[in-house]
Each structure stands twice: as structure tokens, then as C-alpha cells.
């Protein structure tokens, strides 16, 4: 299947042969009686950086949560690195999330999902969940500190005391501690002063993806503008207007 490559960044490094990192088919998800995601399909290739935009409450976070298995219930298939991680029976939220995470997902959630009692350093450590990452966590932390210099002074401060912006940095830093193959970043600039927000986005753009892929959900389209490979709109639980009708058409014809 050929996806639109027409509008990716000029001067982006030549792609390695791309591989499907994520393949979502017919995903529906919701919380109890509410259905938030409706029959959604999404394919993400390695090396891609995708933006998802949409109004408040239209299900961007829910899509991410569904991929991580954190919604109340969900149906449909989710393949992460070719491995089926979508569970179609209703499940307790979060019951299998750690397995999905270990299969190569890094979720940087929208709310501050932090451990308020841990210090910044421990917090970053907690992101290194694989054995290799744990072993060279020192080096990785240094890398994070290069991205977020303000954290340098705060390494021993409990995260619960930090300001929203600092928490956000910690939270993103935690997500970047391992080598995941899919980064889901939910509203990185939310609750941040515009300037920090921008630097966070810059940091995300600077992450070398290699074989991995990244999806960024953001309300502020201007921040993503021209810096991601494609932008997908999200409207009442459906993806909208991916700029290649041909793809959709193909999918439709095949079905």
C-alpha cells in the first residue's frame, strides 16, 4: 500500500524501508455507555511523525488510551509491530497496558499521570522499564536533561511540587527514556506557557525516530504546522480528511 509521501518534510533523511508500526482496524472504544471512538482505521509506518488535531472531547486522548488498553471497553484490532494488542472483550482499564507498553509503546498522556512522591530523577528512572534501558539509564537521563535543561536543578525535588510545565517536561522525559517503537504524545503543549510549549514541541521534533513512529495529538495546529509528516483531523470519534482519498478509496474498495 502506498501512502502519501508527497508532503513530508523537505530535506528529511531518506527513509529506511518502512514497516507498519501500528495498524488499527475497526476500532471502537468508549467508557461504559458512552462510545467515543467509532470504527476507526489507522495505519502508521515506521519513521512517521503524525499529528492528530481535533476539537475538545472528540476522542483524541481516547484513541491513545484505546491503543494502550486504558479505555473502559474497546472492540477491533490493534496491531503494534505486527502483534495483536487490541483486546476485544471488555476489560478492566489498564489491565494489560503494561504488556502493551513492553511491546514497544510509549504513551505520554494528557493529564499529569505522575507519581507525585517520587523525585524527578526516580521518575525518569521509572520510565526505563526494559532491562537495557535500566542499565544505561544514567546516559539516557543525560540525554533528557539536554532536551529539558530546566530539569537539571530539580533532580531531587518530588514531582508533586513542580509546576505544570515542569511536570509536563518530566512526563515527556519519562516517555522518552526507553526505545519504544511508537510514541503517543497527547497534547504536549497543554497547560504550558506558550514559550515552554514551543520548546517542548521542538524537543519532540528533535527526537530521532529511526525505526519508530510518533503520533502527536494537539489542539494547536499551528504548533505542528509543516513539521510533521501528515496531519489527521479527528471529529466525533472518527478520523477525517487524511489528505489522500486514494488510500481511503482503496480501503473501501477492498472491504
Amino acid at each position, binding site marked *: 500500500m502506498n501512502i502519501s509521501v508527497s508532503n513530508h518534510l523537505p530535506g528529511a533523511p531518506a527513509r529506511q524501508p518502512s514497516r507498519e508500526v501500528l495498524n488499527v482496524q475497526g476500532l471502537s472504544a468508549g467508557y461504559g455507555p458512552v462510545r467515543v471512538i467509532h470504527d476507526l482505521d489507522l495505519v502508521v509506518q515506521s519513521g512517521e511523525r503524525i499529528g492528530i488535531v481535533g476539537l475538545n*472531547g472528540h476522542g483524541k486522548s481516547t484513541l491513545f488510551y484505546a491503543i494502550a488498553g486504558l479505555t473502559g471497553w474497546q472492540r477491533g484490532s490493534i496491531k503494534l509491530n505486527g502483534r495483536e494488542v487490541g483486546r476485544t472483550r471488555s476489560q478492566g482499564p489498564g489491565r494489560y497496558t503494561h504488556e502493551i507498553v513492553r511491546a514497544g509503546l510509549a504513551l505520554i498522556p494528557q493529564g499529569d499521570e505522575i507519581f507525585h512522591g517520587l523525585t524527578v530523577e526516580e521518575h525518569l528512572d521509572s520510565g526505563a522499564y526494559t532491562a537495557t534501558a535500566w542499565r544505561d539509564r544514567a546516559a539516557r537521563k543525560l540525554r533528557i536533561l539536554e532536551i529539558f535543561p530546566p530539569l537539571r536543578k530539580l533532580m531531587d525535588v518530588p514531582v*508533586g*511540587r513542580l*509546576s*505544570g510545565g515542569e511536570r509536563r517536561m518530566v512526563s515527556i522525559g519519562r516517555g522518552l527514556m526507553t526505545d519504544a517503537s511508537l510514541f503517543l504524545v497527547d497534547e504536549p503543549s*497543554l*497547560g504550558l*506557557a*506558550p514559550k515552554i*510549549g*514551543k520548546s517542548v514541541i521542538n524537543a519532540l521534533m528533535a527526537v530521532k525516530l529511526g525505526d519508530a513512529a510518533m503520533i502527536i495529538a494537539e489542539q*494547536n495546529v*499551528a*504548533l505542528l*504546522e509543516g513539521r510533521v509528516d501528515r496531519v489527521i483531523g479527528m471529529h466525533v470519534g472518527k478520523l477525517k480528511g487524511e489528505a489522500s482519498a486514494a488510500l481511503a478509496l482503496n480501503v473501501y474498495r477492498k472491504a
Partner: protein
Amino acid sequence: MVELMLRRLSPSSGVEQGGTATLFSCSGISLDLGGREILREINLHVQAGEVLGIIGPNGAGKTSLFEILSGRMPPKSGTVWFKGENVTSLPLHSRSRLGIGRTFQTPVVPDELTVGETFKAARQAYRPFLTKFDAEYGADLVGLKISEDTPAMQLDTFNRRKLLLACLLMRRPSLLLLDEPAAGLINSEVDEIDKLLRMLAKEMDVAILIVEHRIELLGMIADRILVMDAGEVISEGLMDDVMADPKVHAAYFEDFSEEADA
């Protein structure tokens, strides 16, 4: 005459604003939480029938300010005046008895009661107990048309907000503190809120303090706007003046054009 009396009652707070006595004011409010300075020297005042809008980016301290103004949190320093009395140390329920109504950012309802029971409980919250007619008056005012037997938990966001408002309005408060009353509402519902607030302010002389992210709503109903950022008031005045303030622009309206400049 009344103003004179008021002034005598409250020497330090009876500031006059535009010829009418201040109904509610605060001065020098500061707050520290978890070792951080959340609010710094906030002053504000409203008079009867006035709508004061408060805007500011997330985390500016708007909700924290409301917590102090309504008595759910004590300030580190500063005083709150209502009708010429110092109410700084009164808890929320006492202030509520004086006529200060407050709503919350998240639409809270009593989970275990039905709508009818909620009204009954609110009527009997303190003496004098109100009659059924007062409750109906409150419900009519906000346009709550829900069967009495519905569990309050099953209400949707709008009706939840209405339920609290009805419970407050049946005591005929003279000041309302509204924390994001339109959050999570669709446009037609926002219009309804808009109408209600206008009526309260202009016809019933209720003073309203309102925090809201929907600028268009504020623009329609607020007499004055206060802009907060990082625990401080950075601008105050009419909507248009405030909008023109570059400081406000920098703090709150980060939009495309600026992005383009950057």
C-alpha cells in the same frame, strides 16, 4: 443614605466605585500551596448587578482564587469583604448563608440523592427552611425541567450545573461566584447560561464573578474583565481594552500570527 450607612459599617472596605458601594471585594490576597506561591496580592471588587469576568491561562490561579473568595481555603494573607463585613475567616457554608453562591469547575451533584431530595435538602440546609415554592422558583429560574425522581447522578453536565444553580438561587443570593459555568456545554446551552446570567445581573441585581475560558461568552455579559497570569492580575478593564493589552496577548492569546512571527 444607604451608601452612607454602608460606609460607616465598613470603614476600610466601603470604597466607592462609580458611585455605587462595593458589594464584595478582596484585598491583598496571597496564597501558598505546597511551597509555591499560587496567588500574589490580588485585589478585586464588584458591586451589585455587576458582572466581573476573570480569564487567564490554565494554572493562573483562578480556581484557587475562587476557593479563597468562597471560603474553602484560607489565604496566606489578605482579607475578603462582603457587604461591609470581613468574612475572611468564614467557611463556605457560612458565607453561603450570607448570600454568596458558588459553583464549581467540575459539575458536582449529590450522588446519592434524587433531584427532589436534593431540593429538599437544600431547602432545609439551614434555618429559615424554605418552602416547596422557593425550590420551584429556583428550578424555574434556571429552567430545570427534570422529574423529581431522577437520581442526580444521572443528569448530564448542563442539568448538573443547573441543579446547583437552582439550589443556590432559591435562597436569593446577592453574589454568585461561577467557575467555568460553560465548560463542557454546547453552544445553545451556553446561550441559555448567557441569558440567565444577564437576567440575574441586570434584573435581579446579583453581582457575578465569573471565570470562563469562552471569551465570547464573557464578551457578551461581562462588564469588566480581569486577566490573571501566574497568580497575578496583569490587566483589568473593559473587554476591548483588555484584549488590546499586549501583556494579555502574550500570556493568553498565543495565536497563529505570533507563531508566524517567531
